[in-house]
């Protein structure tokens, strides 16, 4: 997959074909990350050999559609298998465009062009963002018109099916003035044994006074690798919430950047990760305060089992005119074994006056007294530890402020804990 330029289908607009070609050139030109690069500090560079992966035709679509369970009554539901749309249903109100990207590129070419991959990828994966841009064949495009509020949730399933399959999921969500929408991406593998690769990008643009909530549930099998790039822009008085759950994959890299572009804007950057066995999650974040008077709050929590490894590197960056910034960053690690490893590199760069910023990172273990208390109520040690670890994650999930979505996320968290205990925690 890394040797031949992907071909843009002829029915797609010329600007898009040009973007894909230039992205391919960029992919070839940008050097591969190497040990010693600041943005790849502590990373396992060896994970970046993707030469064995290729695009694969859809197989087993009906089975995967049946397995695409999520919310009870989503406002819209789309199912992609190997980036191909295999199922769609929608109860969305007027004023909402919710289309597969391949279709939106034709029917709403100008609108897509205005918003498509506008940010520079600055947290290390520029090469892979270029590969994504050059290679993507589909995705989701959501545009919510001014003053339209979507009450339910748009639920999108992304499946990888087949040995050594690569997918390039793309989610682009744009909210107009005073509108509201919530999108949940659920990433899974068709089986537990076939290695896969996902290089995903999601672009969120929260227009003035709008509310945009995005949830990514990454529950691939444990022989899949993931690069996920999240870009968020929040304009005046907008509120953007991004939540990432990592339970799957052998290796996942999340690069998450929020740009606070207008006064009164707010970005909540949330994540829960529960790595076990040999899983490794590598998370890089950037809270970019471009405008004055904006608020960003990052809370990442990791519960690490067995030989799991996490890396958190976060930077709050306040531009020189971004006065009256409120920016917070917290990463907390719960070490569930003596052999896990949590690396944290919080950071702060402030170029403005009168800012309130804090950053902190902690690592802790469950105390013996806490375990004694739960066991003295009859709860066995394995369940006691899981109850505590689940409780550790819950306050992040509750920040989603939507019961149904919280329950969905907790279901994946509980599945992971069940998986851990079934193999002996």
């Amino acid at each position, binding site marked *: 997959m890394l040797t031949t330029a992907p071909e843009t289908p002829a029915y797609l607009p010329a600007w898009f074909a040009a973007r894909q070609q230039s992205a391919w050139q960029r992919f070839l030109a940008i050097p591969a990350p190497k040990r010693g690069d600041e943005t790849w500090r502590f990373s396992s560079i060896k994970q970046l050999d993707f030469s064995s992966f290729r695009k694969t035709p859809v197989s087993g679509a009906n089975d995967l559609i049946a397995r695409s369970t999520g919310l009870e009554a989503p406002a819209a539901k789309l199912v992609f298998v190997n980036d191909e749309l295999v199922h769609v249903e929608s109860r969305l109100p007027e004023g909402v465009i919710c289309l597969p990207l391949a279709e939106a590129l034709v029917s709403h070419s100008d609108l897509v062009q205005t918003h498509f991959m506008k940010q520079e990828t600055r947290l290390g994966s520029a090469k892979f963002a270029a590969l994504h841009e050059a290679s993507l064949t589909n995705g989701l495009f959501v545009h919510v018109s001014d003053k339209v509020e979507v009450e339910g949730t748009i639920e999108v399933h992304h499946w990888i099916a087949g040995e050594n399959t690569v997918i390039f999921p793309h989610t682009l969500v744009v909210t107009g003035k005073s509108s509201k929408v919530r999108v949940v991406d659920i990433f899974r593998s068709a089986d537990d044994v076939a290695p896969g690769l996902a290089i995903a990008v999601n672009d969120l643009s929260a227009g003035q006074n709008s509310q945009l909530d995005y949830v990514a549930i990454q529950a691939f099998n444990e022989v899949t690798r993931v690069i996920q790039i999240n870009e968020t822009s929040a304009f005046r008085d907008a509120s953007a919430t991004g939540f990432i759950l990592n339970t799957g994959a052998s290796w996942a890299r999340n690069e998450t950047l929020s740009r606070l572009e207008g006064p009164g804007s707010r970005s909540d950057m949330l994540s829960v990760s529960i790595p076990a066995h040999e899983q490794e999650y590598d998370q890089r974040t950037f809270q970019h305060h471009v405008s004055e008077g904006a608020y960003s709050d990052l809370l990442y929590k990791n519960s690490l089992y067995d030989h799991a490894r996490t890396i958190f590197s976060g930077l709050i960056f306040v531009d020189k005119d971004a006065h009256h910034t409120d920016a917070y960053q917290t990463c907390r690690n719960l070490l569930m074994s003596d052999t896990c490893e949590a690396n944290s590199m919080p950071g702060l760069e402030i170029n403005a006056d009168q800012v309130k910023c804090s950053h902190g990172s902690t690592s802790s273990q469950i*105390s*013996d*007294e*806490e375990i*004694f*208390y*739960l*066991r*003295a*109520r*009859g*709860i*066995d*040690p394995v*369940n*006691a530890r899981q*109850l*505590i670890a*689940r*409780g*550790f*994650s*819950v*306050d992040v999930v509750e920040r989603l402020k939507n019961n149904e979505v919280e329950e969905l996320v907790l279901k994946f968290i509980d599945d992971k804990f069940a998986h851990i205990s079934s193999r002996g925690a």
Partner: protein
Amino acid sequence: MSLHIQDLHATLENGTEILKGVNLDIPKGEVHAIMGPNGSGKSTLSKVIAGHESYIVTAGSVTQDGEEILGKGIDERSRGGIFLAFQYPSEVPGVSNANFIRAALQARLPKGEEIDAVAYYKNLYSKMDLLEMDRKFTARAVNEGFSGGEKKRNEILQMMMLEPEYCILDETDSGLDIDALKIVAKGVNAMRSPDRGMLLITHYQRLLDYIKPDYVHVMAEGRIVRSGGPELAHELEKDGYEFLKEPALA
């Protein structure tokens, strides 16, 4: 049918002996109180019975209705009917009270069997009403941000929900104002039953005004040094533990 403690010796991990031969029999249907000065080993006794792993039992036995429990794990003893109300209950962030008690009840059921949620909440609410606990406590994380009195009430709530055979209450009265003490006592008294034995551990006689014990024991330096009826508590209240310094006590 009793919780029987025979010549119990226990040390800290560093070898310091805390319990130096405790003998005590708590038959079902009776309430016993242990009083004693700080450092006498009262709390250690409660933790050793519950199975705390920081203590090493070097001699003696604890039997429940004739069956040795010292070889059992902490959670196994709890499921078997031993309950310890903690002096300092742990906080469990992110785990709601309702889910916590439910998990404890669930642990008592055979694999595959589920708790009936409707019946569970009905039962929980009736016990909370008796303890004058606001319904909002079901959703709050276990003991997190609770006042001292709220934590103690929560311990009694758990005890009432788990319906143990033998209850050990470690300094349940400490940190309680008189109103909270009365409510806690009401909960404990409601639990008194011919099918249940209770051991109250307390530093002060005050608790025993509200929960009348059948027997009072005095513990000092790791042993029970004196036993008697409820009047012993009043004697101690009047004269303090001075008598411990006198020689020749039975």
